[in-house]
């Protein structure tokens, strides 16, 4: 097996601390399972204008 450094074991060992972007119900179901979650109240950036989103991503 290739011996690259991996952090995936850290995730498996847990605990999961999640940032949820999107469906609120996903955050709720994680909370029901005693997972800590930060819900991001996401909306399409730049009014959903894709060219503007790409430009913003490059700038930030």
């Amino acid at each position, binding site marked *: 097996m290739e011996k690259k450094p991996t952090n995936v074991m850290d995730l498996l060992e847990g605990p999961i601390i999640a940032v949820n*972007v*999107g469906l609120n119900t996903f955050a709720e179901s994680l909370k029901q*399972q005693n997972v800590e979650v930060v819900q991001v*109240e996401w909306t399409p950036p730049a009014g959903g204008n894709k060219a503007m989103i790409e430009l913003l991503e490059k700038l930030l």
Partner: protein
Amino acid sequence: MSSGFKVRPNQYFDSIFLMGVNKRLSAIDGVRQSAVLMGSPANKRLLADIGISGEGVDVAGPNDLLLAVVADTSQIVEDALGRSEAWIEGRGGVSPARTSVRTQARAVADRPDANLAVLSIAGEYAAAEARKALKAGLHVFLFSSNVPLEDEIALKRQAAEQGLLVMGPDCGTSLIGGKGLGLANAVRRGAIGVIASAGTGLQEFACQVHNAGFGISHAIGTGSRDLSAAVGGLSTFAALEALARDPGTEVIALLSKPPAPETLRRLLTRLEESGKPIVGCFFGARPETSGLPPSVQLVQTIDEAAQTAIGRAQGAPVAPSLQLTPLEKELANSLRARRSHGQIWLRGVLSGGTFCYQAQQILRGLGLEVRSNTPLDQDLGLEDPNRSLGHAVIDMGDEYFTLARPHPMIDGTLRRERILAEGRDPELAVLLLDIVLGFNASMDPVGELSGAIIESRRSAQAQGRDLAVVASVCGTDGDPQDLAAQAKMLEDAGAVVFSSNARAVLFSAALLD
């Protein structure tokens, strides 16, 4: 007939909340059609399809909410729009002024120990958010579909550089340390690890392991394209390395569509190096056992994968088998005898992509020619996904049906309509269904479909035919929907119920000649 719409500018809601509002709206007496959507271009096309247009719709953008109603009278339209606005005001939208955490950067600043981003936004925005997550050092669970292939490759390469894991895109399910992400079932922990490119395949496998009294260490979804030549299995390899090292994982199962040949070669090497017993199930592939490492056992169905993994975890290898019990065969014989002369076709109206593949594989193995909108054999594709032909199994979770709509495991509306449409075909002999329970799935999936099942069976009966309905339920006793109650409701609607899709398919085939 009358119609109307309302635009609520700069009010963003997620699709599940909007689905709930639309369900209430469509239940109002006199409402014929309704839509509650954000103003993205795809959604505006859906509105045009139901005859809703106007300047307000034209200028609306992805952050503007659109409510539209077609009803018997203008009074009903006005009343329905008014009521739906009141429901929305009762909940309150996401407006920039009222929320504190609006970016991942802010979330990570608040919780520097965060280690996983769960992303379920529209596919066109998902890659940008996944890049932000990786930049912040987070692993990614990417539920969103319709993410461009080149973005997937770039994200997974970036993740590999950082030692991070990208689950998805189009990843329905994972279970990490017993915690379900996305559409996942309540499954106990145990010694079996699983890596799956197929969401429902992962759910079915985990449920069967649980229902047999065993458990799952971790179940890692990788996304439907991960083992393609283009992506090269980057997430599968990362997951495999982690499960190989994980002391709690004694056996690893791998469920996927057939990998690209060059990916398979590298995969086999990695599997051998893992040092753990491996069970592989590549849907649609005829197992090629030459050159297979001795630690790797290939099987053809999820049921056999679960049986084999359990056997290997117990150190007692089993010869997996998939067959009906004598009692089930007897029942099949008696139902087959009730068929009328003209009833010849089997039709599957399925929500799970893996179930659709597995059904085709099993039926093909039995010598049946089966068409599909997601065909295993490309020459058996359906020209029009809305119209079945001959024996057919339809994946209602395919992009064709889910663009700008919730997945059929979350909202049964389209499946209900399709069941009724199939039920009207006098040549229909067997209707095959799947029900998937778990976190984030519909809270009453059978309730959404049972009316259509009963109506189809009743109208067939009125015309002197007996319509057989065969359904599988994927779930566990810990799932929020109540597995036993859902199965009972299916039986009460007249369905023969199985706890596995593979066995439901076998039984369905036994009802044909």
